[in-house]
């Protein structure tokens, strides 16, 4: 029983369009009674691979074997028949339905909610879940929704479970609970694949680790026989030796000062809670934290895209709270947020490079017309400077590759001559060379005296590039550390909330603030009014 193969992939290849190869010759074996981690950087093809097992995509080449038999999984329905269940990163639940209704959706069983409710409770108690089957999804927290997803696949009798980044949205306690459940399921004979890029979790939960790099299969190792360092090397290909210079610049006065900032999320929960920090000119402040810990809301609040609940944001000594996005842009605060799909905010995908260059400046000058001529000149200057690969300045941005798209976005922001740059995930999905180009650009700006807020994913990069790193956990500051004096482990502990330095020391209030304490108090009063 112990070494029975549950699932085998042989030489799987998947292309998107004619250009992108998401998976190339991937082979993988999954045994029963095991938890296999699928490890890889963003864009390494993990999710695509799993989507092929769960019937969402169909492989262009290669073979899938289940219990030793060749299997054709052409649709999610097929996947269920093979007892494969996938828990997607973005939950596939119907908001207006209850948990029970979601669980029986597509299950072809009678619509008898009483029966369903008791079976759900049975499964829940078997593996240690906590769930109310009659609660509607839109009233649930993220971890409750995840529970519904997992029960949904168990309810259908899945023997092979695939979890796509299940911990990204959970609190440390919730993660512990989830892992306990996963272990119980493994001991129950299930085969589990967990997709992640967090090494500590890989080490903690999995029996074996398979690594993907840029769509290619690197290898599989037993977790007990490897170290995090070895896994990192497998993941990134060579020994991580980041040669990012931290240029030293003379210390300037704080440019952007934020105190006691509280921001709500779209659904009304608190995303950022009493956060205080400041950025000096000529300084890169990193923001570390797991996905969904409030980075996005923080960026949006500073850029004026999201109203704040309380607190103050001072730029150069005067408050920018309540200003329109346009006024904030005009003050020289630039924000570039690279979302997961890369194109969501900051660029207009079907616009030409020229038109994207003038997204923020089209309104300049008098008269009713846009100045496309100068935008075109700026576009071709940028193309030369950052060696952007494109047929012409008039090519729609969506036809360019990811790296080039990001260069355009970051390049445009810098070209506008800002004094504060807020940049989130600027190297998301980029290759090493393009990433380095972006780091160089940021360092160049730093030397010019620009204050930079760098929201990043890769801790190695942040340690090398940033001057200070602020660590967020569930919207609260866990501490601000000097990048040169801290370690990855320390930041990792703070990210998960295991270490809270803010209890020992109050962070985020500059001694040489642009405002006196009295002025801060006045500002606070004004906010309250």
């Amino acid at each position: 029983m112990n070494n029975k193969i549950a699932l085998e992939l042989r030489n799987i290849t998947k292309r998107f369009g004619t250009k992108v190869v998401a998976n190339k010759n991937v082979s993988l074996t999954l045994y029963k009674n095991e938890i296999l981690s699928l490890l890889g950087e963003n864009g390494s093809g993990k999710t695509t691979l799993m989507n092929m097992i769960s019937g969402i995509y169909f492989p262009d080449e290669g073979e899938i074997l289940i219990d030793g038999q060749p299997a054709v999984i052409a649709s999610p329905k097929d996947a269920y028949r093979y007892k494969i269940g996938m828990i997607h990163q973005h939950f596939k639940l119907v908001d207006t339905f209850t948990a029970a209704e979601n669980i029986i959706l597509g299950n072809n069983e009678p619509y008898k909610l009483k029966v369903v409710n008791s079976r759900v409770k049975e499964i829940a108690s078997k593996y240690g879940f906590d769930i109310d089957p009659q609660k509607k999804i839109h009233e649930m927290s993220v971890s409750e929704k995840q529970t519904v997803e997992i029960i949904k696949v168990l309810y259908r009798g899945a023997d092979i479970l695939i979890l796509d980044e299940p911990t990204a949205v959970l609190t440390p306690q919730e993660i512990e609970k989830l892992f306990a459940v996963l272990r119980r399921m493994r001991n129950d004979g299930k085969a589990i694949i967990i997709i992640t890029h967090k090494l500590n979790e890989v080490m903690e939960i999995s029996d074996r680790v398979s690594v993907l790099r840029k769509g290619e299969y690197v290898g599989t190792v037993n977790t007990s026989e490897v170290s995090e360092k070895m896994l990192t090397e497998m993941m990134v290909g060579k020994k991580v030796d980041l040669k990012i210079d931290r240029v030293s610049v003379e210390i300037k006065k704080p440019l952007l000062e934020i105190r006691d900032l509280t921001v709500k999320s779209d659904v009304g929960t608190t995303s950022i809670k009493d956060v205080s920090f400041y950025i000096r000119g000529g300084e890169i402040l990193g923001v570390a934290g797991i996905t969904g810990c409030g980075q996005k809301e923080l960026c949006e609040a500073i850029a004026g895209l999201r109203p704040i609940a309380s607190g103050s944001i001072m730029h150069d000594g005067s408050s920018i709270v309540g200003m329109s996005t346009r006024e904030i842009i005009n003050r020289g605060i630039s924000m570039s947020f690279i979302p997961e799909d890369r194109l969501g905010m900051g660029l207009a995908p079907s616009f030409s490079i020229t038109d994207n260059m003038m997204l923020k400046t089209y309104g300049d000058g008098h008269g009713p017309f846009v100045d496309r001529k100068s935008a075109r000149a700026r576009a071709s200057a940028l193309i030369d400077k950052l060696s952007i690969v494109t047929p012409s300045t008039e090519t729609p941005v969506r036809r360019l590759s990811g790296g080039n798209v990001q260069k355009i976005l970051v390049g445009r922001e810098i070209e506008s001559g800002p004094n504060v740059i807020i940049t989130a995930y600027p190297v998301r999905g980029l290759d090493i060379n393009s990433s380095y180009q972006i780091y160089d650009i940021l360092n160049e700006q730093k030397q010019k005296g620009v204050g930079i807020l760098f929201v990043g994913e890769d801790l190695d990069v942040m340690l090398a590039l940033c001057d200070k790193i602020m660590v967020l956990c569930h919207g609260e500051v866990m501490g601000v550390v000097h990048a040169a004096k801290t370690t990855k482990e320390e930041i990792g502990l703070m990210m998960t909330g295991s270490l809270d330095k803010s209890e020992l020391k109050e962070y985020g209030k500059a001694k040489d603030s642009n405002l006196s304490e009295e002025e801060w108090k006045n500002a606070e009063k004004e906010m309250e009014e």
Partner: protein
Amino acid sequence: MLTSVIVNAIRMGTIFLFGCVGEILTEKAGHLNLGIPGIMCIGATGGAVAVHLFGGKVSSPLLVLFAIIFTMLFAALAGFLYSFLTVTLQANQNVTGLTLTTFGIGFMKFFSKRIYDQKFFVSLSSAFKNLFGLEKNTNPFVQIFLSHGILVYIAIIVAIICAVFLNKSRRGLYLRSIGENPATADAVGINVSLYKYTFITLGSAIAGLGGLYYIMDRSGGTQIAEAPIDSFGWMAVALVIASMWKPLLAAFGSIVFGGLSILDAMLTTLPLDKQKIFAIFPYLLTVLVLIMTSVVKNKNNQPPASLGLSYFREER
């Protein structure tokens, strides 16, 4: 007087109710079918064809049955065309729907003119009216509940069946999930395309009956080519919103809409222009409901979340 208003409101409302229930099924599948007015015209044509072919040759009940079958068949074909274009070929739903409406109106006017014989149709219309033969009875209860033609009862039964289907059955749950979130439905193994095809086509067939009802019952066979079925169709689309996508509410709403749209003809004591004011109320009411649902944002009264959007599996 009041009895007569209610009776006429129910009868007028029946046209809207058919169209509305058909459109509710369609919208629950995530498709905004603006072709419903055209589909009702096409359905009416189908019914007229049946009357033309079988009138006088078969018994009354059989004629009604054939007319219903023909109507549903014609309307279903139109609905199938709409499904093919918007589901399989991912065409824009608004453009497809409006084209279908243009086509449907032309279709009805063109073909019905060629087969329509007023005397013949009027003489056969009695088969569709007055199911229980109690039309002459003046008892208000009998007037309101038992004096109508068979299609009035069918409309109400269909509305009830749809309500039960949507809220109490497994397939109804699946259908609703498709209108809310087709990617989810797909991921759990529901055949999204099959459901969309089935319920858009079925919805169209039901809507088509509204056209048949108008030409053979409400207007008593007196008009086809000139029948304003398309404008009734738009009322039906409006009623979907006013009833907040609930078939049972639509049944009551149809009576309100019906009442408002016949008030002008009932209030003969008022000057003509004053009578005309009432015609505006159904639309104003619809706009008010539309505004209220968007302002209040109660999760249970919203349009299906993916209404009007095509679903393409690999685009996620």
